[in-house]
């Protein structure tokens, strides 16, 4: 067990002290469950104020160099996150920026670009979105067709990106584009694109409606958009390698720890997937014969199955934090996305079974249990098991990168 460094110890104290007096007031608007569900400027504004405040105190971007707007510390983001998990806080709104754009920029952009982009990314003043998926490029990301053709020092972009969360608020997009049609992987190049500035001038953002009836994703269409070559990351034709940096961070298996706040701790079970809420739900919903759901032994068994998986998942992340127990660098982190998204789906489905007849009621119905939250959660759960690498692709990745089995494609 490596002991904490002096820097880490001092920084941990700093975090604690600052947090003691800096927890933001509760929001006046109802917040979505995740940042990618932000719908209104009111919601965004509240969360941006929190991110800016945490950034100001040095709790965001701790491990990035000072000249990029970071804290210049070593392995301290983890400490800040741990302290931010201990108190009840909102989450950061700029999740694509912090989780994916920042490390990608850090590892692949020019120094000038890092200095230009990262400070306002960390502060949350500029929101980021991700332009990867296309109608014909989902699981098979390398088949993207959005084309960038070069004219001197500018690139002209045409194409169609889909499932871009936060695009309607975003100043910037990280974009994986094609610059050579003759080579699949080596024909890709990576850009940062100032989409807000170009709205109506080559960029159109349109909301996509989810199966739940809500908006939340967007499609972004590029028509003869011109951008400067300075917005290119790494070399022409190296886009796939750059995208791998993005994706490894998205999967929690990258080098840089993502700044994060907002989980609610609980002295007993802090359930990620909402199992605890469903146990609560079962206490005041009824089986078809009128019995309380929480008294049905089969329902109890199913609830415990999910509770055990929930706890097992959290404890396995705890195992990963112990260096001596970490026999493979990405075995546990690469499981996270797969495990949590499937668990959330099953929890929501069990909640509907527990609600029984009243699970038919949707969010607009005054009699819907928990405000119809679980029906909505179930429908939306597929966005999570599909987006950012479907569960099927996640299992390929785990089988290939961790268990070293041959590629399935």
């Amino acid at each position: 067990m490596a002991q904490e460094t002096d820097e880490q110890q001092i920084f941990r104290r700093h975090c604690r002290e600052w947090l003691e007096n800096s927890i933001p007031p509760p929001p006046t608007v109802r917040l979505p469950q995740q940042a990618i569900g932000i719908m209104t400027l009111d919601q965004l504004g509240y969360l941006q104020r929190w991110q800016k405040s945490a950034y100001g105190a040095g709790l965001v971007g701790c491990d990035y160099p000072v000249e990029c707007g970071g804290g210049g510390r070593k392995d301290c983001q983890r400490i800040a996150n741990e302290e931010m998990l201990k108190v009840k806080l909102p989450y950061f709104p700029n999740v694509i920026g912090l989780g994916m754009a920042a490390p990608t920029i850090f590892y692949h952009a020019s120094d000038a670009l890092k200095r230009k982009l990262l400070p306002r990314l960390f502060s949350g003043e500029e929101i980021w979105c991700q332009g990867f998926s296309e109608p014909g490029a989902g699981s098979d990301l390398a088949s993207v067709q959005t084309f960038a053709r070069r004219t001197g020092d500018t690139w002209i972009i045409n194409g169609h990106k889909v499932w871009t969360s936060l695009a309607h608020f975003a100043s910037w997009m990280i974009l994986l584009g094609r610059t050579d049609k003759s080579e699949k992987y080596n024909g890709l190049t990576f850009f940062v694109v100032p989409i807000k500035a170009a709205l109506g001038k080559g960029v159109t953002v349109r909301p996509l409606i989810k199966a739940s009836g809500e908006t939340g994703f967007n499609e972004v269409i590029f028509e003869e958009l011109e951008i400067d070559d300075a917005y290119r990351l790494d070399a022409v034709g190296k886009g796939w390698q750059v995208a791998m940096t993005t994706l490894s961070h998205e999967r929690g298996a990258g080098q840089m720890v993502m700044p994060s706040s907002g989980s609610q701790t609980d002295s007993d079970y802090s359930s990620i997937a909402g199992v605890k809420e469903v146990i609560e739900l079962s206490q005041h919903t009824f089986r078809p014969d009128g019995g309380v759901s929480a008294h049905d032994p089969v329902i109890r068994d199913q609830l415990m199955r999910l509770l055990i998986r929930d706890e097992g998942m959290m404890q396995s992340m705890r195992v990963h934090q112990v260096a001596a127990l970490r026999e493979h660098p990405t075995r546990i982190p690469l499981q996270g996305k797969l495990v949590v998204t499937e668990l959330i789906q099953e929890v929501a489905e069990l909640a509907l079974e527990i609600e029984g007849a009243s699970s038919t009621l949707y969010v607009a119905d005054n009699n819907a249990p928990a405000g119809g939250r679980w029906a909505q959660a179930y429908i939306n759960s597929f966005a999570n098991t599909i987006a950012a690498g479907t569960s099927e692709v996640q299992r390929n990745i785990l089988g290939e990168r961790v268990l070293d089995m041959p590629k399935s494609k």
Partner: protein
Amino acid sequence: MRQPRDFGFDEQCVQLKQAARHFFQKKLPTQALHTLVADDPDPFRAPVARWDRALWQEIVQLGWHAVAIPEPAGGAGMPLVAGAALMEEAGRVALPSPLLTTLQSSCVLKACNSPAAHALLEAVVRGSTVTLAVLDKNGTHQSRNVTASKTDNGYVLDGFAYFVQDAAKSDVLIVRAGGLYAVPVTTPGVKIVPDHIVDLTRDQAHIEFDKVDAALLAEEGDAILRLSEPARLTLLAADMVGAAEWQLQTTVDYAKSRVQFDHPIGFFQAVKHPLVDLMVLIDQARALVYAAACAIDHQTDHADSVQAEKYARMAKASASDMASFASKKSTQLHGGIGFTWECFVHLYAKRQKHSQVMMGDATYQRRLLADIVMGIPGGK
């Protein structure tokens, strides 16, 4: 009684199934369904029943709404297996209509065996649509949520009924208030409050009865409901089987046409194998639906009716698990498009979720099945 190996699928019954398949596929292709029920994605839209009344009139003219009503009451007098086959085809197009509630209500009315019930069956034959108002706020039969008082002219009902299926498409309610009572929806004092529901292909309501005149159909309401439960479960499960077959075929088609990694995705076992498993689930649920319908059609003594109830609970349990898996896989395997409003799969997934909890989910059916097969622990 000895049951026919072919479930009673005689020529008439087979013809009905084929005609219904052809008719529904032609009249309500999925694009038309989407236009009909999914025009407004806003979850806070008004809870208006979206259905095609003209199409329903055609169904009535074909006599399919009265397929399982005995000939003396003017119906086609066909066996329940014909009704199940019809519901399967209706489920396959996720038909928004009062067909299921009317067929189920007919089973209740047949069990009532009273002149009033006979009269209502005749009205059904003429085109009246009927639904059941028999559940309390918890979705159970436990509380006396509606009470009936005898008056000089008949009966008066007071109280609330919940989870009334396709109420906005119905002309007459069968209300549980100790006994069972018939109430036309236009009767003064009936207040139908539509629910905002997830399923886009159905409507649902809770209903207030405020000194509502009603006609007695049967004294022993709960007994009649129990008696008709196997048939009602079977019809519901048939709808689910048909819907699941659509979910299977649509997803298979997508898997054959969507190319990723230089292969149609059906090449990948992570896509192919779950679809095979779904096919197996569907075939078992369908078979149990037919077995249940056949057993109900041929029951002559108590042992037969126990057998019929077993098959019916098996059918609903099997169909519910099938529907859960079908909805999950049809959405998941459609990938990015699968969780959008414009894709059709959510219409079916929502209908299936609704059907899964109606009349009790799989876990509940298995509990009652175990009580029959294994006896009740403690030996009541």
